[in-house]
């Protein structure tokens, strides 16, 4: 049960139950679709990008608690940031989730997003947490094909 509580922290359960930014903004000028072929989950990330600034970030789709909470916390976290910063967050998030679960979670300066450190103990679930981020990156890069975690 303790590992489970580590994975399903209350912040994650809360964002799963009441996801923030779960909407399709009318003024979105970037979007990308992401798929996790393992579970069939699909999600679309919408951005309003003004020059280099993420003015709005939102998502649609359904997934497991980890992927929904990740998308929710991500959209909260990147709003109001410069694209360059967002890419840095992506890298930090990725490093956090792929770090060795036997050693303490690295401090990537991710704030609230650090709750996903518990996912490291569950290798098959890492992709659930990173799907939203891969999709966000595809939206920023204007990639025409759906993003996957593969």
């Amino acid at each position: 049960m303790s590992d489970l509580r580590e994975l399903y922290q209350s912040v994650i359960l809360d964002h799963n139950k009441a996801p923030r930014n779960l909407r399709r903004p009318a003024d979105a000028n970037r979007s990308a679709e992401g798929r996790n072929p393992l579970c069939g989950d699909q999600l679309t990330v919408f951005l309003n990008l003004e020059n280099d600034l993420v003015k709005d970030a939102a998502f649609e789709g359904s997934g497991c608690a980890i992927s929904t909470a990740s998308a929710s916390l991500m959209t909260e976290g990147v709003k109001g940031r410069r694209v360059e910063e967002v890419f840095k967050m992506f890298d930090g998030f990725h490093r956090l989730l792929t770090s060795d679960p036997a050693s303490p979670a690295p401090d990537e300066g991710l704030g609230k997003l650090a709750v996903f450190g518990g996912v490291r103990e569950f290798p098959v679930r890492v992709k659930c947490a990173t799907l939203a981020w891969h999709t966000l990156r595809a939206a920023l890069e204007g990639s025409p094909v759906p993003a996957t975690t593969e």
Partner: protein
Amino acid sequence: MKKLDAERLREDFPILRTLARGKPLVFLDSAASAQKPRAVLDAMQRFYETSYANVHRGVYELSERATQAFEGVRNKVAGFIGAAEAREIVFVRGTTEAINLVAHGLARTTLGPGDEVLITELEHHSNIVPWQMACQERGAKLRVVGIDDRGDLVLEELDKLLGPRTKLLALAHVSNALGTVNPVREIVKLAHERGVPVLLDGAQAVPHQKVDVRALGCDFYAFSSHKLFGPTGVGVLYGRADVLSALPPYQGGGDMILSVRFDETTYQGIPHKFEAGTPDIAGIIGLGAAIDYITAVGLDAIAAHEHELLRYAGEQLARVPGLRRIGTAREKAAVISFVMEGVHAHDVGTILDQNGIAVRTGHHCAQPVMERYGVPATVRASFALYNTRADVDALVRGLGQVREVFA
């Protein structure tokens, strides 16, 4: 019929004594792949140690012995599924390859622009994509027979869709995602009245019930060794001698030819013209041992045991709050698919896994089925001869913990 003693049979499966996440393994994913009895593992080991050589090639004693054992399994498979002759049994890598072999042959022989291939909404991706590819290649059309809310095929739709342009009907004997047992004997009869040949995907049927291809009347029947307690990498395509002979070779190579010249090659007859290259010899020996094993246990006893478990599990799961079963067909194999209100299947799977319980979660390679029910994924528990009521009870306890975490 002798009653099956699952507790005793469990001792035949070494893996069932292992721990998962530090807990005794509760294996409820045999529909994905079944565990292997000691007899199968021993047969393969013994074959490598005492009788191994390439088959159909050497004049020496060892090769002869290997060939005899290998062809012996072909005979055994033919008997196991009621084929008229051993040459109607083609060894392939699995159900997927068996279906691809027929789809490939159909595209090169009979399928033309405007023709149709008929499948159903409950198929596994392996019985969708090969036909889609064949149809695309030949300008033909893929038509789909729907299912109703219970997960039964809509037979009136099948009746309507079996038309003059239908070149083949391909459908599952038993659905992997829902457990629906299709009334294949009646369906084959209907298709044959319209002159349409039928391929049955038997991957989920063969481990759980006695299959007699001649009684079913089907033209092709495909299944995998690994779901039948045999090793991975081996599958069987049954084809009635006349329809199999009409198909062109699938792959070119050694062992499938009579003579090779640079201007012309003549092929062997069935089944060898479909078996290019060195086959998975030891795997096929293992399949033979698996068939011996389940024949000794008795398929009638296996079916009765699994149905009793299915009934018990149905009763117990009905008491779990917020659980909705997906697929309640009139006749069902021992597969239970369900969703939990407010909890995604993957989260259910992770929590069950922490309790040593292995279930399948996801779309089960049947995305159209998930779409039909408007769910992204389900949890699937499937039962085999080695499962007991205790496994069901463990599952129900695990689902209680799911409710706790997601309260």
